[in-house]
């Protein structure tokens, strides 16, 4: 049977918490890391500490990003435009490629397994977590940091808005969840924050930067089928609503149609901080902590049609048989159900 995939740690750095970045970096390390790389490394270390996990080489890394290190990219270009070829910085050049946060983080936490950077507008973090879930469940990786990071330059955000590519409210930061197989978590006696029980990602018909005309979608149904769950079991929905009116309306229509006749309450964690790709980690962890004995759906859809659905269960779902004292506390809860049992429920 495919391994169950549990969340054993979460770390998020954003506007509210960036003061802690320096605590997670030493000085010589920080010198060479751009600001977004610093966020990312700090969030990764925070998540690993939360999970009490030492990578010891066998750790994968999946980072979603919308903007990469665009701030450094602009600085690199400006160096040339102001001073010619001698104004080009060799130190900045690697930051012009979007995998720079992954490279910095892999080095900082010694993650030597698979390392992926996924780029997508507004759904990149969710996409990375969904991909990571699939990789753990398929047995391709044992444990991973999955999430995202962004530092959107206001200049670029304005360009996107003016070009009709979305008026989203942007934030900056980085965030990860630690995902691992339930067996791996049990073997090392790790606390379980929740479980991802299904995920799917698909593309909806839409023009680039555009909103689709139809509310029909497949990712939600596919994620529920993956989880062996029914839409009636979804107690809460976490959306990607973010101040882009047409996209929000589209997402509401998609959710209402996919979950009909049920209308679980929806909310978005983007609104207080602005959306950044690291927020997906906070959303998934929050969904797990608030799921109770039901399931939560983390959903996001981007202009252009990229759609991600992640079905999350609370810690009770995975706690049966846990080797620690939490096992006794779980006895008073509803017995957790395996995905296939859920389908019968």
């Amino acid at each position, binding site marked *: 049977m495919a391994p169950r995939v549990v969340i054993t740690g979460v770390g998020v750095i954003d506007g509210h918490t960036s003061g802690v970045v320096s605590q997670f970096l030493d000085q010589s390390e920080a010198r*060479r890391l751009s600001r977004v790389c610093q966020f990312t490394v700090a969030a990764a270390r925070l998540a690993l500490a939360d999970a009490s996990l030492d990578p010891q*080489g066998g750790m994968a*890394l999946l980072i979603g990003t*919308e903007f*990469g290190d665009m701030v450094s*990219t602009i600085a*690199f*270009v*400006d160096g*040339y*435009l102001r001073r*010619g*070829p001698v104004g*080009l*910085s*060799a130190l900045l*050049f*690697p930051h*012009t*490629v*979007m*995998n*720079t946060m*992954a*490279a*910095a983080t*892999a*080095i900082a*936490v010694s*993650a*030597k*397994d*698979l*390392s*992926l*950077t*996924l*780029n*997508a*507008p507004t759904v990149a973090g969710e996409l990375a977590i969904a*991909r990571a879930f*699939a*990789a753990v469940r*398929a047995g391709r990786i044992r444990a991973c940091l999955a999430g995202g990071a962004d530092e959107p330059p206001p200049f670029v955000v304005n*360009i*996107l808005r*003016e*070009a009709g*590519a979305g008026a989203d409210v942007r934030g900056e930061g980085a965030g990860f969840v630690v995902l691992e197989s339930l067996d791996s978590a049990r073997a090392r006696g790790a606390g379980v924050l929740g479980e991802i029980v299904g995920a*799917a990602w*698909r*593309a909806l*018909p839409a*023009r*680039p*930067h555009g909103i689709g005309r139809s509310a029909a979608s*497949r990712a939600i149904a596919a994620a529920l089928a993956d989880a062996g769950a029914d839409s009636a079991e979804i107690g809460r929905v976490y959306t990607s609503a973010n101040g882009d009116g047409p996209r929000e309306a589209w997402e509401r229509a998609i959710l209402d149609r996919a979950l009909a006749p049920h209308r679980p309450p929806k909310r978005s964690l983007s609104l207080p901080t602005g959306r950044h790709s690291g927020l997906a980690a906070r959303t998934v962890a929050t969904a797990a902590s608030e799921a109770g004995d039901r399931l939560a759906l983390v959903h996001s859809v981007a202009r*252009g*049609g*990229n759609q991600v659905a992640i079905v999350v269960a609370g810690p009770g779902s995975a706690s049966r048989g846990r080797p620690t004292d939490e096992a006794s506390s779980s006895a008073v809860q509803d017995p957790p159900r395996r995905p296939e049992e859920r389908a019968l429920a």
Partner: protein
Amino acid sequence: MKPVAVTGLGVVSPFGAGVKAYWEGISGGVCAIRPITLIDTEGFRCRIAAEVPDGIAGSARRTRADRLALAAAREALDDAGVVRGERAEAALIVGAVGGGMLEAEAWYWRRARGVLEPMPRTLASSFPSAHADVIGSVLGLGGPRETVVTACSSGAVSLALAADLVADGVAPLAVAGGVDALTRICFMGFNALKLLDSAPCRPFDRDRRGMSIGEGAAFVVLEDAGRARAREARVYAELAGYGMTSDAFHVTSPHPDGEGMARAMRAALRQAGVTPASVGYANAHGTATPQNDRIEARAIRDVFGEGRLLVSSTKSMIGHTMAAAGTLEAVATVLALVNEVIPPTAQLETPDPEIPFDCVPRVAREAAVELAVSNSFGFGGQNVTLLFRRAA
């Protein structure tokens, strides 16, 4: 891994549009690295690259990279005989780095020089993810869609990710590939790092002095092997295994022992369930920097042993095409299996004694090979090996 069939190929290369032109070029040992025309090179030591020649189809309202990508993806789907109705389930995985930066740079450069003009539409398509949204929308691909950025190995990672989706039954088929147009950032950056040769690059040569950059796009159709058989599709090869590892060592330098590279090659062998001795050809990353070629050769030797294995670098002919490189070289590897011809390493005059392999200097070699690997390595220590098996 459940083997996945390669049933379609599409290429836009410095030899022009089409797989045929590409194979004629690389099997003929032709070097397409020439003086740069797309961007200003004044004041830089290296002023050459492998550009895609004029005449790429597509609307001028799209970025150059989008046009390259669309042409290659369309050729791959047509080649596989995948009709419109089947495309709604197809996954699309694109490896990309520069996105639509060439056009964004042009606007930014003029702006910096005080030329005020309306913002071009293409600015919204500056990011790597733009290609996937264009290809997916135009070609009607409705399955999982991902854009992966692992620097110079992006075009190989895309095939591995697509193979996962097909092997797991998430999508019956996938279009996967890589694209990059030349950009100022890339050209200037490699110049700043002093990694570029002022003459066409010479991989594995004792006197190699660095890389040449290039541009292009390549896509393949990957398909469930049973499905391919059922619809009697032409199968070029099977993607039998892959390995993806991270050095976790340095942002630009590979691990000096090639440890991460060797791990990727071994993982591919293990996944395919084959022995090192059964592999006959390695399409190397082979950038022609002193460091890469020495370390890569060491890693290949550690995995496959000295001698025997044929090793060649396609970059000697089309330069380093960045995110397209991994896919262009995967296509070269597949075609080498199909045609029983190993493309050469052009410009290789004086073999480096530190590289203990037959690097197929200048002239293609006839050789029937059952299994071949394609290596791609990227900044940040992102190592990928793809392993292909000739179709039965």
